């Protein structure tokens, strides 16, 4: 994974152009998940794919690799915690696990929207983190 960008100018140029769009698209999918096709899973996977593409084309040095590894773990854990947190919050407010109308919003409809929104963000974080983690563990050079 220590190839440098000069190895392949075509791949470098194309991915440099592509990566920002991939990331915007990923965010769009997460943001749109409660109403249309898309959602946290797809968005998270595409977001992770953009970072993986960057790592494959431009390579990572040891320091970057270590940092990406830590970030990936953090993303995965925080995603699950966001998901569980929203569920537990519903419980604390007297509803069942993930019963969105129990959330402290003006009316149940808004609560549904925002609740699912929060869940999509949690899923997106978790999926992106897990994908990155899998990539790092199977293709990374660090031993553990």
């Amino acid at each position, binding site marked *: 994974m220590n190839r440098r960008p000069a190895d392949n100018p075509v791949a470098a140029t194309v991915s440099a152009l592509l990566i920002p769009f991939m990331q915007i698209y990923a965010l769009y999918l997460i943001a749109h998940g409660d109403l*249309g*096709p898309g959602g946290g*899973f797809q968005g998270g996977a595409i977001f992770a794919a953009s970072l993986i593409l960057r790592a494959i084309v431009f390579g990572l040095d040891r320091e970057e690799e270590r940092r990406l590894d830590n970030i990936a773990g953090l993303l995965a854990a925080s995603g699950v915690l966001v998901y569980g947190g929203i569920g537990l919050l519903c419980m604390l407010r007297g509803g069942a696990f993930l019963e969105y109308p129990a959330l402290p919003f003006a009316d149940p409809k808004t609560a549904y929207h925002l609740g699912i929104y929060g869940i999509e963000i949690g899923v997106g974080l978790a*999926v992106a983190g*897990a994908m990155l983690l*899998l990539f790092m*563990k*199977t293709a990374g050079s660090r031993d553990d």
Partner: protein
Amino acid sequence: MIETIAGKYNYWIYISLMMIGFYAIIAKGNLVKKIIGVNIFQTAVFLFYISISKVRGGTAPILWDKAVLYDNPLPHVLILTAIVVSVSTTAVALAMITRIYKEYGSIEEDKILKSRRENL
């Protein structure tokens, strides 16, 4: 006869895919090829689930004014979960294969078995 074959072609494809996957799991000695077999095997089941969700004349289950009938969205959701599971299984398997390669120096089943027998 033609009706059963052509009219239910997706089910035939699902069965064929499943058998191809099964064959690869059993017959291939390379661990990565085995995992590819497992993946094909699981994909066959995804196709099966998507097939049963189809409603004749239905559109994709996205809210739309002109739609009269929607396909059943539940199997789609279920299979999304199954796809996640399949990805995780593949990832765990690949992680194991890389470690097996480090320990045994090969991912061919017969070589691994030979190496195990020699060290017994």
